[in-house]
């Protein structure tokens, strides 16, 4: 326990230092509080609007959870397909890269036209933003499997499917999980983009929607409070996935387990 606290110490110290600089910057009158509110004001606003923030976070969290899961699924499957079929790779890869340049605000209205005012258009936006890192890392992971291991599998009479199942896929999972971690971190801003570029119904429409409304309503402190919630949520997601990885793919971090807390593992360690 004590070791964990020690591990977290640098993060806490850095965060406190940054908040301190921010507080001083505002308190010294270097910026108008409507442009940048002080941390204590943001904290008070978060406290006073806890119910509103919680209701909106619940929606945003659902979108991020579902959206990232779909993105992982689509990204991983697409990555494997691309790996297995060079023609597919040539056909799909450029489009996948290009998809990252699509301005979501432009297609938001089309997505709403197709799928209405519910969660579907938002999920699509999150998947669009998040699937790419998963595809790239999966494809690279599949290609980076130890050639000797594949040779061995072939010598032992493994079929193509078996080579994939027992050779390439397990080797690719750590890389794919790195992609997943990127996807999850990006997924939160993806949800913000999704909420602010598609129409919605109902009183609560997520933190992103609330931030936009607050920017327009001059409620800058509350917009910052919502942003802080998103910030913390993204960090929480990232580390939750790190924990989940140990359950889903314990072989991915065997060598780096001792060197937690979590940082992106280097692929080489696993061999």
């Amino acid at each position, binding site marked *: 326990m004590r070791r964990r606290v020690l591990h977290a110490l640098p993060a806490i110290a850095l965060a406190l230092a940054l908040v301190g600089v921010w507080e001083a910057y505002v308190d010294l009158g270097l*910026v*108008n509080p*409507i*442009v940048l509110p002080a941390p204590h004001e943001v904290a008070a606003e978060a406290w006073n609007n806890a119910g*509103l923030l919680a*209701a909106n976070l619940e929606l945003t969290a*659902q979108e991020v*959870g*579902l959206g990232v*899961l779909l993105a992982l*699924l689509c990204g991983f499957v697409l990555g494997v397909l691309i790996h297995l079929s060079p023609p597919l790779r040539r056909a799909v890869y450029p489009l996948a890269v290009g998809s990252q340049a699509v301005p979501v*605000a432009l297609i*938001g*209205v089309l997505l*709403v*036209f197709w799928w*209405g*005012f*519910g*969660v579907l258009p938002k999920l699509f936006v999150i998947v669009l933003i998040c699937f790419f890192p998963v595809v790239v890392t999966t494809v690279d992971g599949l290609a980076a499997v130890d050639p000797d*291991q594949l040779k061995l*599998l072939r010598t*032992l*009479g*493994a079929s193509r*499917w*078996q080579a994939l*199942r*027992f*050779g390439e*896929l*397990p080797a690719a*999972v750590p890389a794919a999980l790195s992609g997943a971690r990127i996807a999850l971190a990006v997924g939160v801003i993806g949800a913000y983009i999704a909420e*602010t*570029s*598609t*129409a*919605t*119904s*109902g*009183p*609560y*429409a997520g933190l992103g*929607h*609330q931030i*936009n*409304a*607050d*920017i*327009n*309503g*001059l*409620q*800058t402190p*509350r917009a910052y409070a919502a942003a802080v919630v998103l910030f913390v949520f993204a960090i929480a997601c990232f580390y939750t996935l790190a924990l989940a990885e140990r*359950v*889903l*793919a*314990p*072989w991915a971090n065997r060598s780096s387990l001792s060197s937690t807390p979590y940082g992106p593992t280097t692929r080489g360690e696993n061999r």
Partner: protein
Amino acid sequence: MRIPPAVRRAAVLAPRYGWSVLIACICAVALAACGTKQDTLSSPGAKPFTVMLDWFPNADHAPLYAAISHGYFNQVGLDVRPIVPSETAEPLKLLAAGKVDMAISYEPQLLLARDQGLKLVSIAALVQRPLTSIIALPSAHVQKVADLAGKRVGTAGLAYQAAELHTALQAAGVNPSSVQEADVGFNLVPAMLSGKVAATLGGYWNYEALQLEEMHKHPIVIPIDQAGVPIYNELVLVVRSEEARLHGEDLRAFLQALTRGEQQVRANPAAAAALIVKANPAAELKLQTASVEKTLPATVPTNKSDPYGWQDPSAWAAFGSWMLAHGLIHSNPNTTGLPPFTNEFLPGQGI
């Protein structure tokens, strides 16, 4: 499938429960998503009728929310559901695409959309005159439009706002080229507060101006129709022309219910503001109450004998000509095709 034991041993052994856990997670989340349904307050048999707002629910929409919560729409057989857009051009697009039954938009925006060939028509004015204003803070030493000479003015970046600024400057005898226009997007008020612009054009006198007032900033507010821009209906209710032709009964019923909603707002502005906050919990009650009260005089026609929602034909003609003269639209709305508005569905109007 039979797997040679040697393959099993040689392979990096993937615990199979890993995959089942993943699949179970996906199923669980998918199920959870299916479970979150939206609750609707509708009476059985009422016809679903979606209205896309122009913006987040606010004081301008008070009559709509009053009519919903008092059940006036249900009484005429309509189950009205408001939808919040992501940006101001979205409502007319989704209306034209048939995704919503009615859109709240702005007269200039409607004329632009019609100029693009969208077959839409305004059936009522929610707000009679422009809310858009030139707003300045005392520190910028702008008391009247003429004071803007040589200064920088922020707008939300819409072409017709630039034209409005142009007209206002010319009316005040200022050479428009001496004024620098800056597109500050959403951030009209922060741009002023941080001193980046001397004034803004695009904020509303019943909203941004009130916010600044609440912050004790004592803004100078000049509604643009008092600065030389022809009067127009800031907010209008728009439907597809075909819908107006085929389902006039629904529209007539809608406007009847809306008129009763407006009477409720007039009778009890504070209660109406509370309904706005209920629909948009992020809205602030004090500001919404002030805004509802401030807006009331602008929701009724100048001529008392005209019904609520009335659109003044001569004002529409003058504003259409103004847009044409400034090159904002390419065909004359007064002479091309059907008129952009109709009063025939208002209570007591039509055949």
